[in-house]
């Protein structure tokens, strides 16, 4: 079964997530949020969101609390570095991967 009936004759891409596959598999550490330190969490209203602003992968939601899409988060650590209250820390991915494997 080939591509003879494909609807395009040229290199014509439509948009969608995950062109790079499950880029979450790239990371060696993942962000962890301490809601007790997170400003919007503490105030329970829209505030700060510096992590949302600077995430290169757009995997941090602009919500209370901010959530990380681990399917695509590459673990760059910019959110942890920029968070003004150090509410985000980077934790060793290996430990989480093991735990998740056990749960499957």
């Amino acid at each position, binding site marked *: 079964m080939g591509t003879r009936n494909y*609807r395009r*004759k040229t*290199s*014509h891409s439509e948009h969608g997530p995950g062109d790079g596959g499950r880029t979450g598999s790239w990371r060696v550490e993942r962000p962890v949020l301490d809601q007790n330190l997170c400003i919007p969490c503490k105030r329970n209203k829209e505030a700060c969101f510096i992590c949302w602003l600077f995430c290169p992968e757009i995997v941090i939601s602009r919500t209370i609390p901010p959530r990380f899409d681990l399917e695509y988060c590459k673990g760059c650590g910019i959110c942890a570095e920029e968070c003004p209250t150090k509410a985000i820390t980077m934790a060793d991915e290996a430990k989480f991967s093991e735990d998740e494997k056990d749960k499957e």
Partner: protein
Amino acid sequence: MHIIEDGNSAAALGVKLCRANVIAAYPITPQTPLTERLSEYVESGEMKAEYIPVESEHSALAVCIAASSAGARVFTATSANGLLYMHEQVQWASGARLPIVMCVVNRAVGAPWNVWNDQQDSISQRDTGWIQIYCADHQQIIDTVIKAYWLAEKVSIPIMVCYDGYILSHTYMPFDLPDQEKVDAFLPPFQPEYALNPDEPANLNTVTLPDVRLDVQGELAHGYMEIRYLLQEELRTTLKTAAEAEKRFAGIFGRGGDPYIEPYRCDDADYVAVGLGSITYQLRVCVDALRKESIKVGVMGIRYYRPFPDEAIANALKGKKGVIVFEKAISYGYEGALMSDLKSALYEHLAGTGSLPPVQNFIAGIGGREIRTDDLTQALRAAIKSRVSKEPTWIGLKL
């Protein structure tokens, strides 16, 4: 309506009649007057188009590629080193399947510098996936520009309309100027399959993998090889569509003929001279002279060089006692490009049938060296008499 104009003007008038609406212009001898004439049409309001004086030929074709991708009917023209400079874009345009029409006013290539006519420039582009049509006179120039837009938009493949620099571009001939209404009837407005727009976003011509891959809708999309194969496949079926274009044109304008070849006194000929462009009309004089000596010779102009009309050529030359190919270019390191392609077509269709004619190759007019009709006649006579050489013979060389 019959007018007397030069070849560049014939081309410009064709572009105007086709209502091209984005024109990229960069000067290079001997094409320059063509785009100058277009600037007159645009500035006077006779033509409604965006006229962009680009800063290089590479950009000229870049503008055309982008404008066409956004849905405009585009045009540019060039010669020689200008064409060479845009070579990267030439390859791009065909791979992007854009219906660009470009006039190539044939001129010799550097080094060293030479502004006079030969066909090395466009011949060197024969592998790029563009359709190439060669014109032998001004009527053909204007008619071919019009047919080219229809054909290009039908098959989504760009077309080079080639004609000899100076010999055609700067000489005056009478020809019929088609009516605008008839051209509008022949050539409807451009309706691209897709044009860049925010309501239907797409990313065009990005990196394409060696292998196939699922798209966002879960369907298996082409790899690079499939996309390139489709170009080749459609180029070959373009031969049929070209015949359709010819028929359609004849139906509306009342003139036309064989889409691929232009034979003169070939039916009963034992020997046939073959060429591209204006040299074939010069060869008619030689043919007439030799016929007076009872030598049965004819001349056949080839119009479509790409896609190569191999079957039509083989059928026309089947059983001839000899074929003599005259060229204004050479595939350096071997022989004339047309020579190779023609021999290949004859071999493919006629080998083993007993009707495969021998072929000889003459190279003439390189760098605009004057092609004396007497020299052509001599060459023909000699070639008919016996095999002149295994290598191409250069006419008029003064070593």
